[in-house]
C-alpha cells in the first residue's frame, strides 16, 4: 500500500500460535506493515500477519502495543 521506504531497516516476527487476533498491532504500525492473516491457529484465532516486511523500520511500536507479547523485533 505505502511502498515509500527504499529498504527495510528492521524486521519483526509474530508468534503465530500465541496471537489472539485482537488487532491492536494493525493500527499501531506507522508503516501499515501488519494485516490480519487468513490462517487459523491452534486456539482458533485468525492470527496477525507481517504482510509488508519491506516497509518495516524496526521501531517496535507494534511490539509495545501487543498485550500478549508475541512480537519480537530486530534491527
Amino acid at each position, binding site marked *: 500500500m505505502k511502498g515509500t521506504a527504499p529498504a527495510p531497516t528492521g524486521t519483526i*516476527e509474530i508468534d503465530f500460535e500465541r496471537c489472539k487476533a485482537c488487532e*491492536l498491532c494493525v493500527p499501531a504500525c506507522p508503516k501499515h506493515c501488519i494485516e490480519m492473516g487468513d490462517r487459523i491457529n491452534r486456539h482458533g484465532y485468525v492470527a496477525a500477519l507481517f504482510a509488508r516486511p519491506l516497509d518495516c523500520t524496526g521501531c517496535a511500536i507494534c511490539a*509495545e502495543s*501487543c498485550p*500478549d507479547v508475541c512480537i*519480537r523485533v*530486530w*534491527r
Partner: protein
Amino acid sequence: MKDKRRETFPRAVFSRPRSLLDVRSHYCPGCHHGIAHRILAETIDRFDVRGKTVGVAPVGCAVLMYDYIDVDFAEAPHGRAPAVATGVKRAHPDRFVFTYQGDGDLAAIGTSEIIHAANRGENITVLFINNTTYGMTGGQMAPTTMLGQKTATSPYGREFRNDGYPIKVAELLATIEGTAYSARVATSTPAQIRKAKEAVRKAFDMQIREVGFSLVEFLSTCPTNWGMKPLDAQKRVLGEISGYFPLGVYKERKQADFV
C-alpha cells in the same frame, strides 16, 4: 527467508522481558492486563529486583498472575492485598513488595484496606487496574463503572441516584498524607504505554528509596464485558473514560518524612 532477514538485522530491540514467563496467558484478546504485566516485568528487570520481589495477587482476572511473572507471590483474600503486603513488607523490609489489584478488588471490597495502607504510609507499591467493571465474575457493576454504562447488574445503565458516581481512586489517595506517589496512566496508545512505564518506574523508585506508599492506576479495557471489539474498547478509553478519569501524576513526594 526468515534466517536471511535475521542475518541482516542482528540486534534484538524488543523481546519478552526475563521476568515474564514464556507461557500463553489466559486473558481475553485485547485485554490490557497483558500490557500491564509486561510493563511490570520490564520494570522488575530494570531495577534488577527479581530475586527479592514478593508480589501480592488479588481476586479478579489477575488471580493467576503467579503463572506469568517470575517472582514469589502471595495470594490475598478479596480486597485484602494491601493488608497482606503490609505484613510481608514489615516482616521482610529488604524485600520489594507490590500488589496488583483490579477495581472490584481495590475500589469496592478493599476500599478500607487501601485507604489505611496509604494512610499508614506503608512502603509498598500498588498497581491498580481500572477497567470499570468486574471482569472475572462476568461484568457486574463496579464502583468505577461509568454513569450510563450497562453491566450485568445495571441493565439500564448506571444511574447516580441509585449507585453514586464513579470513584476516582488516584485523586482520592493523593489527598492522603502517607501517599508518596499517585498517578493515573492508560495503555491505549504507544505514547501512553511509554508514560505508563515511566510512572511504574517512579512508583518502584519510591519504594526502593523508602519514601512511602505508591500507587499507579491503569485505565484498562475489558472488551469481553463491555461487548466491544478490542479497538473500539481502546477508543472508549481514549474518549469517554479518559474524560472522566483524567490522566496524570497527582502526587509525587520528593523525600520521606522520617530521616
